[in-house]
C-alpha cells in the first residue's frame, strides 16, 4: 500500500532540473521564464524564493502541507475509469478527479501550499487574482482556515460571468474587487494585484494562481500541484498495469496541466497533450491559444508565448471558459512545447461544449468547462493514437474542476431555461 502522506511529501520535495538557478527555462528558441518585474519587487521575490527553497526540505512544512491535503482538501483524488465514455471514444479513459477536491478544483493544492508559506513569512494578508473564480475561492478558503485577510482581484467581466463564485468568496470573508480597466478579465486582475503588491509587500503575500509570473512562481506553483501527476501515475499503474499512452490537460496559465504532466516528463512513452482554448477558432483571432496562435514575448514577469500585436501590445483572449481566458501561458509549457516534449493543440468552444455534454450524459459527471477542453482533446486524439499504436490506447484526462459554477453559461449555451443568452 502506498502511504498517501509520503506520496504528497515526495511529490513536493522532488528536485527538478528546470528552471535553472536563475529561474529560466533555456531552449534553442528562447530563454523562457525569468523575472521581468520592477526592482521594487525584487526583495520580496527573493524572500519568497528563500522561503520556498527552505520549505522544500523542511520536515515540519512537509507535515503541515500533507495534513492539509489529506484531511482538508480530500486527497488523494480518485482516478475514475470512465467506462461509458471509453466505449464511445475507442480508448480507455481514466479521469483524474480534481473536481472532487474541497472547493471543487485543483487550485486548492497550490493555494494551501502558498498560504502556509505566507504564514511562515509572517504575512498577515493575502491577495490573489482570479478568472473563473476557482483560484479566488480556493484562496479565500485557505485565508479563512489560516486566519489571513484576503483580497481577490477579478475582472469586472468575469464577476458577471461567475457571479456564484463571487458570492462564495464573499461568504468566506474575502473582499472581491472588480477590475474595470483594460479588457476587464484575468490579465487585468493580475495587473491590479501587482499594483497592490508593490505597495504592500511588507505585510502582503501574493498568491498567484497559475504556474506563470516571475520566478519562483512557475516552479513553486508546479511543485504544489505536482501531486496530481504523481498520484495519477501510480493509480494508472495500479489500474492497468502500465503507464498511460497519453496524459491530457487543459491549458490556460497551465497549473493543472503542469501539475499532472510533471511526474510523467521522464516517461518518454507517455505523450503529454495540452489543450488550449480555441475560442471561436484560432483562424478567427478570437481565442486564447497562446502557444498555437501566439508568439514569444514577456508578460506578467515571464518570457513565454503570448497573444500580442505587431508592436508587442497584449491582445485580448477569448474563450467560453473564464479560467482559460488568459493571453499567455506558463513558461514551463513554452519550454515543453519548444523542446517537443509536450504537444499543444487548440480546442474551440463548440468542441469543448460537446465534450462537456457528453461527459454529463455518459458518466454523470458535470465537468468545469475548462476541463471539458481536455476531454474534447482526448476524444480527438483517441482514434489517432489507436491507429498509431494498433490497440486501444490508455488516456489519463485531468478533470481539473467541477462544473457547478458553469451551469449558467452551459444552460445558456444549450438553450435551457435560466441560462445566460
Amino acid at each position: 500500500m502506498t502511504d498517501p502522506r509520503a506520496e504528497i511529501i515526495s511529490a513536493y520535495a522532488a528536485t527538478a532540473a528546470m528552471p535553472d538557478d536563475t529561474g529560466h527555462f533555456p531552449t534553442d528558441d528562447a530563454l523562457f521564464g525569468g523575472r521581468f518585474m520592477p526592482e521594487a519587487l525584487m526583495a520580496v521575490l527573493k524572500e519568497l524564493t528563500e522561503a520556498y527553497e527552505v520549505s522544500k526540505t523542511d520536515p515540519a512544512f512537509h507535515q503541515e502541507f500533507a495534513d492539509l491535503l489529506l484531511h482538508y482538501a480530500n486527497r488523494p483524488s480518485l482516478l475514475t475509469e470512465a467506462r461509458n465514455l471509453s466505449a464511445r471514444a475507442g480508448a480507455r479513459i481514466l479521469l483524474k478527479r480534481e473536481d472532487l477536491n474541497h472547493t471543487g478544483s485543483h487550485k486548492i493544492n497550490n493555494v494551501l501550499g502558498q498560504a502556509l508559506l505566507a504564514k511562515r513569512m509572517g504575512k498577515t494578508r493575502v491577495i490573489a487574482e482570479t478568472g473563473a473564480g476557482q483560484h479566488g475561492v480556493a484562496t479565500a478558503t485557505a485565508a479563512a482556515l489560516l486566519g489571513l485577510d484576503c483580497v481577490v482581484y477579478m475582472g469586472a467581466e468575469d464577476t458577471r460571468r461567475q457571479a456564484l463564485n463571487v458570492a462564495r468568496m464573499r461568504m468566506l470573508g474575502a473582499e472581491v474587487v472588480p477590475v474595470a480597466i483594460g479588457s476587464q478579465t484575468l490579465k487585468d486582475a493580475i495587473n491590479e494585484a501587482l499594483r497592490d503588491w508593490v505597495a504592500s509587500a511588507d505585510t502582503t503575500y501574493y498568491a498567484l494562481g497559475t504556474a506563470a509570473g516571475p520566478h519562483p512562481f512557475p516552479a513553486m506553483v508546479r511543485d504544489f500541484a505536482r501531486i496530481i501527476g504523481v498520484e495519477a501515475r501510480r493509480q494508472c499503474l495500479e489500474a492497468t498495469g502500465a503507464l498511460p499512452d497519453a496524459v491530457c490537460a487543459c491549458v490556460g496559465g497551465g497549473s493543472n496541466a503542469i501539475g499532472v504532466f510533471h511526474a510523467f516528463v521522464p516517461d518518454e512513452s507517455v505523450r503529454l497533450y495540452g489543450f488550449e482554448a480555441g475560442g471561436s477558432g484560432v483562424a478567427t483571432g478570437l481565442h486564447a491559444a497562446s502557444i498555437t496562435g501566439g508568439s514569444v514575448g514577456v508578460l506578467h514577469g515571464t518570457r513565454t508565448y503570448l497573444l500580442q500585436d505587431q508592436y508587442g501590445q497584449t491582445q485580448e483572449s477569448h474563450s467560453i471558459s473564464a479560467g482559460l481566458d488568459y493571453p499567455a501561458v506558463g513558461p514551463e509549457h513554452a519550454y515543453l512545447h519548444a523542446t517537443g516534449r509536450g504537444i499543444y493543440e487548440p480546442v474551440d468552444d463548440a468542441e469543448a461544449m460537446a465534450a462537456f455534454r457528453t461527459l454529463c450524459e455518459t458518466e454523470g459527471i458535470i465537468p468545469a468547462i475548462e476541463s471539458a477542453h481536455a476531454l474534447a482533446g482526448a476524444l480527438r486524439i483517441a482514434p489517432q493514437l489507436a491507429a498509431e499504436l494498433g490497440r486501444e490506447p490508455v488516456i489519463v484526462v485531468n478533470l481539473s474542476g467541477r462544473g457547478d459554477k458553469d451551469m449558467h453559461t452551459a444552460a445558456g449555451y444549450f438553450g435551457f431555461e435560466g441560462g445566460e443568452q
Partner: protein
Amino acid sequence: MNRLQDVLKAARAENRAVLIGYLPAGFPSVDGSIDAMRAMVEGGCDVIEVGLPYSDPAMDGPVIQAAADQALARGVSTPEVIRAAGAVADTGAASLIMSYWNPIEHYGVDRFASDLAAVGGSGVITPDLIPEEAGPWIEASDKHDIGRVFLVAPSSTPERIALTAAACTGFVYAGAVMGVTGARDQVGHAARSLVERTRAATDQPVCVGLGVSTGDQAAEIAAYADGVIVGSAFVRRLLDNRDPRKGVDAVRELAAELAEGVRRGSGQR
C-alpha cells in the same frame, strides 16, 4: 557622450538638479503629445521622458493608465512614439523613452536602440527590466550610444543597488516610494535615504521620481538629488483640460512651477 549625459553634466557643473518630465506619446494624439512635450521644455524641463503606452501597465496608477488606454485606443504605435521622441530631441532637450520591456523586445532590441538614436533620442528607462535580464539591451544600447536607466527602490538591498547602478549609463532612477505612479501628498524620507544609499554605490547621477507633483516637493528633492522626475501631475493637466490649447498651457505652467522649485531647492544644497 550623448545628449542626456551632456545635460546631466552641465547641470552638475551649475550645482543644480535637472527637471525631468513625463508624458505618454499619443495622448491626446501623437501631435498633441508633441505639442505638450514642447511646452514642458519651454516651461523648463531639461529632460523629457516620452512614454510608450502599453496594454498592461502594472506599475502605473490610474492617471497614467487612463492616458495610455486612450492613446492605445487611438492606435498609437511604436514608430510614432519614436517619432515623438525625435520631435522632443529637436527642441534641444534630452529625449528619452520610458517603456515596459515587451514592446521593446518585440520591436527588436537592436532596432529600437538604433531607430531611437537615429532621431536624436539619448536614453531609455525600463521599469520592469532588471540588469540580470538585460543582456541584449546592454549590448544594443552600448552599440547605439543610448543611455540606460534602471530603477532602484526603497526595498533594494545594498548589493542590488550596486549591481543596478553599475548597469546604468544615463542616471539611476530612485523610486521615492513603494508603489505605482501617481501624485502623493508627501514624498517622504524613503527617497532621501535611498539617494544616500545609491550615492554610496555610484558616481552616476541619481534622480528621484514617483509621487512628485508640486514645486515645493521638487525643491525638497532638488536639495539632495541630481534630478526630479514628474509624470502623473503632467498627465493630470491634460486629462483635466479637454481643450488641447488649455492643456498645453497648463502643462507649461506646471513645468515652470517645478523648474522654479528645482532651482530653489538646488540653492539650498
